[in-house]
């Protein structure tokens, strides 16, 4: 049980490995010690260190290379999706410095130009299914080619992203049916109309329950804080 999360959702708080993404801690972007402190206040079990903008990545790498061993049992890093400037191969070279230090490196399919370039990340690489706004990586079929090119890669199953593509959750079920063997962790939140992450609502928690039951063996990362209900 994660005490900080219990008032909002005993069910989420009771999962064996839950943690926060630093992606929603916007006030402290780039200040990794401060972000870490906030993440620890949510959960000491898991964290996703989010370098969504490319300029944040070098400081995250430096932070992780210098850091004492972090308290978390699961650490993932979210690769940049915005302000991309450097060549893909250079980005992968930077990310590869983290491959032995973290449990997962999350990459968005729509940011990938040449899938083979990501092979050096091996089994540290996980691909995240995309939301309805994106042009690719949204469904099981759209993920097929990427996984074929990256056989060692895992799946980061973003539940609300899949629900945004198909509110009946058929797409979500298909992703788990076809790529569930690769599942390594879950992204959990609700989404607003613009597909921005928002605190998980009670209604969504109930709606997603059947999917989360299929994902009980992996860490769940909250992409928005859980609000007390």
């Amino acid at each position, binding site marked *: 049980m994660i005490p900080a999360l219990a008032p909002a959702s005993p069910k989420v708080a009771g999962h064996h490995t839950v943690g926060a993404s630093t992606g929603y801690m916007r006030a402290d972007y780039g200040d990794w010690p401060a972000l870490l402190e906030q993440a620890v206040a949510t959960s000491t079990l898991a964290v996703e260190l989010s370098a969504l903008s490319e300029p944040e990545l070098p400081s995250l790498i430096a932070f992780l290379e210098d850091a004492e061993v972090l308290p978390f049992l699961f650490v993932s890093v979210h690769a940049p999706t915005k302000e991309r400037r450097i060549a893909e191969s250079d980005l992968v070279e930077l990310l590869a410095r983290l491959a*032995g230090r973290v449990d997962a490196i999350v990459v968005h399919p729509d940011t990938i130009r040449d899938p083979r370039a990501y092979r050096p990340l*091996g089994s540290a690489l996980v691909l995240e299914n995309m939301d309805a706004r994106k042009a690719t990586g949204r469904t099981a079929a759209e993920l097929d080619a990427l996984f074929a090119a990256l056989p060692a890669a895992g799946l980061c199953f973003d539940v609300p992203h899949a629900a945004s593509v198909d509110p009946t959750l058929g797409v979500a079920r298909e992703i788990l049916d076809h790529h569930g063997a690769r*599942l390594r962790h879950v992204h959990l939140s609700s989404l607003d109309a613009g597909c921005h992450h928002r605190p998980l609502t009670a209604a969504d928690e109930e709606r997603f329950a059947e999917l989360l039951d299929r994902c*009980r*063996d992996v860490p769940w990362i909250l992409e928005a804080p859980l609000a007390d209900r």
Partner: protein
Amino acid sequence: MDPGSTAGRPIASPAGALAELPGAPGRFATLLAARTSTATRLAALREKVAHASLPDRTALVLFGSWGRGELTGDSDIDWALVIDDPELGLDDPRVVRAVETVRMLLEDEGAPPGGQQMFGGAFHAWRLVEHIGLAQDDSANLTRRMLLLLESVAVTAPDIHEHVRRRVLERYLLRQSRSHRPPRFLLNDIIRYWRTIAVDFEGKVAQDTREGAGEDKFVMRNAKLRTSRKLLYVSGLLPVLLCHYVRASDMVDFLDEQFSELATDRVARAFLHLDLAEPGARTLAAYEAWIALLSDSANRAVLESLTEQTHDADPLFATVRRLGNGLDNGLLALLHETELGPVTRRYVTI
């Protein structure tokens, strides 16, 4: 939790459960192939020792990867002559001759047992049964008893092997056998064994440092603790916790059936029984990947070359750590996020 609940339906035998998980048999190709290869080598071994003159009321028993059905190219061979005759002394010439004969016969079958003298000789079954707890239940006795339950297979005299396993179980349940109550005596001993291994790991690190051991075994021991040892521990824990669904009169039979099957099948059966097939398949796939990794002698050489100082940054060890975490998370889900959760909380925590 109500033993008459969904998960309270009769628990099927663990036999073959791994092959019932989603994605089988392809997803567990290495584990299933290792079972076949273990069975083939065991059959050959049985022929080899068929003409050896072993004393009556003794059984030649194998432990470790032979007992788990997980033989890989470089597996050790941990064996023991289990004596089920209290009158037959360890120094009896028949026993001494038998041990020597077995040692010679098994010479080519794998690396001999390690240096702690737990295997590679003879021991009395009665000690396993009568000396549970207190000073006489030393580390060797505890290890032999636990591994007899958790990962052993008879080369000769399977009836004696089964009889000894049954007597050990009966001893644990002699004073404590109540319907729907996991037997605490056995539970505590399994937990004690796992904790002993984990504590001894640190003891071995300190000992190697003191003695300046040339060979650094830290990484391989660490990797096995994260994978094979952990799976074996939970494969012992689960049958005991599943006694929550079992009547007292059926408990010895239930445990005997569970412990007569392979560790991976025991764990797979629990996942299936508790309606967690998909996470169960991923969990055992992580174990499959570990066994596949270990089957490759180049990988094994890399792990053996790493030290406590160098392992953290090594990509192969990062993969091992990832597989270990996958195994950990799946087993935690099984123990805590199914109907078994309240039983785990109530019986394992305190």
